[in-house]
């Protein structure tokens, strides 16, 4: 039943059939460089902040813990900051606790299908914009190391689900006051809840999540529940880019807010 295939296209004799010889890199007249420039600036600002935050020690103040340092899994964490009261990494871990867990959310975003588009365009200029020639002489895409590792995205998705659960847990704990009594609701609590909601929305809108729910199936009608999940995730997935940016800035702002409270710079009532 299978139709036979033709051979590979052969190259045309030189000089007989050629593309239009146009020297300009692009003939676009719009400001095509604006979008990659904004992406470059926004991602760079996030990286700079993350680098600073990971070495900053003011990541905990009752009842808030900064998202970049959560879950806190080492003995060096203040007692109230330890995830479920545990410190599985013990005394030997002396580096900032954020190093223990940042690989999961960082890997999730690094291999994310949206961010890949963003940084391939803005950082690697491959291509910088549509129909603007890229500067590289050779291109192999994601066919070989290291970029073939982008195919591990789904494993980072599983890790991101755990991180989403931890951030939700942190937000719930922020409903307690500094003495541990439930009923507190400060600005920090609201910020942590909003951040957790956006992180969940971004995580669930992931293309790998869409595939896992039912995208890999061909008979949706045989799996009505999974089809409903796929339909829901597909709606979120249509806004994956928006959610990627919103959640990136929400986690950065939530992290900064907790650190400013911990440093005493923000100290108004209901902080």
């Amino acid at each position, binding site marked *: 039943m299978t139709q036979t295939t033709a051979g590979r296209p052969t190259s045309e004799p030189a000089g007989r059939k050629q593309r239009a010889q146009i020297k300009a890199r692009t003939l676009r007249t719009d400001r095509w460089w604006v979008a990659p420039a904004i992406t470059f600036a926004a991602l760079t600002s996030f990286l700079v902040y993350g680098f600073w935050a990971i070495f900053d020690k003011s990541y905990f103040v009752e009842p808030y813990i900064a998202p970049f340092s959560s879950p806190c899994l080492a003995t060096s964490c203040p007692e109230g900051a330890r995830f479920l009261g545990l410190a599985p990494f013990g005394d030997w871990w002396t580096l900032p606790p954020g190093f223990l867990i940042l690989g999961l959310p960082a890997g999730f975003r690094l291999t994310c*299908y949206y961010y890949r588009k963003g940084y391939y365009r803005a950082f690697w200029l491959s291509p910088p914009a549509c129909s603007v020639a890229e500067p590289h002489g050779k291109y192999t895409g994601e066919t070989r190391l290291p970029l073939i590792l982008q195919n591990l995205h789904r494993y980072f998705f599983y890790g991101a689900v755990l991180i989403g659960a931890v951030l939700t847990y942190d937000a719930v704990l922020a409903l307690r006051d500094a003495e541990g009594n439930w009923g507190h609701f400060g600005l920090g609590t609201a910020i942590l809840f909003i951040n957790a909601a956006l992180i969940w929305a971004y995580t669930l809108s992931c293309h790998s999540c*869409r595939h896992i729910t039912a995208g890999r199936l061909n008979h949706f009608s045989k799996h009505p529940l999974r089809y409903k999940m796929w339909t829901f995730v597909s709606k979120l997935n249509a806004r994956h880019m928006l959610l990627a940016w919103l959640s990136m800035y929400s986690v950065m702002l939530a992290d900064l807010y907790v650190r400013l409270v911990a440093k005493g710079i923000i100290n108004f009532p209901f902080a």
Partner: protein
Amino acid sequence: MGYKAKFRIWRGEAGEGALEDFVVEVNEGEVVLDALHRLQATQTPDLAVRWNCKAGKCGSCSMEINGKPRLGCMTRMSTFTEDETITVTPMRTFPVIKDLVTDVSFNYQKAREIPSFTPPDNVKPGEYRMQQIDVERSQEFRKCIECFMCNNVCHVIRDHEENKPAFAGPRFLMRIAELDMHPYDVADRKNAAQEEHGLGYCNITKCCTEVCPEHIKITDNALIPMKERVVDRRYDPLVWLGNKIFKRSGSGSGSAKSG
């Protein structure tokens, strides 16, 4: 109200040529293709431009207008200012035959390399039973008018002509996704997509989606789902283990075989 529009049009044969300036009258409601036809009628009777339906449904008049792949018949003159010079060039990825007409046979060759719909041996024509939700995903891809602007804009072959033998381009990777998602197709599309048609070259920068005149979500609904299916087959040890333990015959997306 009509006005005199300024055009710069690439003219030449077999790659050799140059941009030439023209001034031509355009009227309210007209599109770029109308202006090109008026040029043919009044100034340059030998200007070559391929066209057919003038309704955005045949995919013939693909060209690059101010550097962007567009259909000449769907690009309204009202989107330009009256003092703007509009540059019109042939699609860059394909060889030029003359002026704005390119040889797109690369695409037909790639189409022939994809095995056609392959139903299971035990299901005869007339016995297919599918519900609408089983096929509506692939129906989106059937809107394709084969203007080949997605293949034209894709930097994998636009900027690297040497990749042409190994890369089918978004249009035909979408065709593979369409078949792989079909409930009754049993051919091995996943390995073929990666090994023979160059899915791994795609770095999902979404230019194909941006230029599609039918607004097909090529990247989100075809290329990325296909990449995920390839991961199932080739790169995910958990899926491999699951297939062994539960004795699934395919990858889980194996249509009539498994679900």
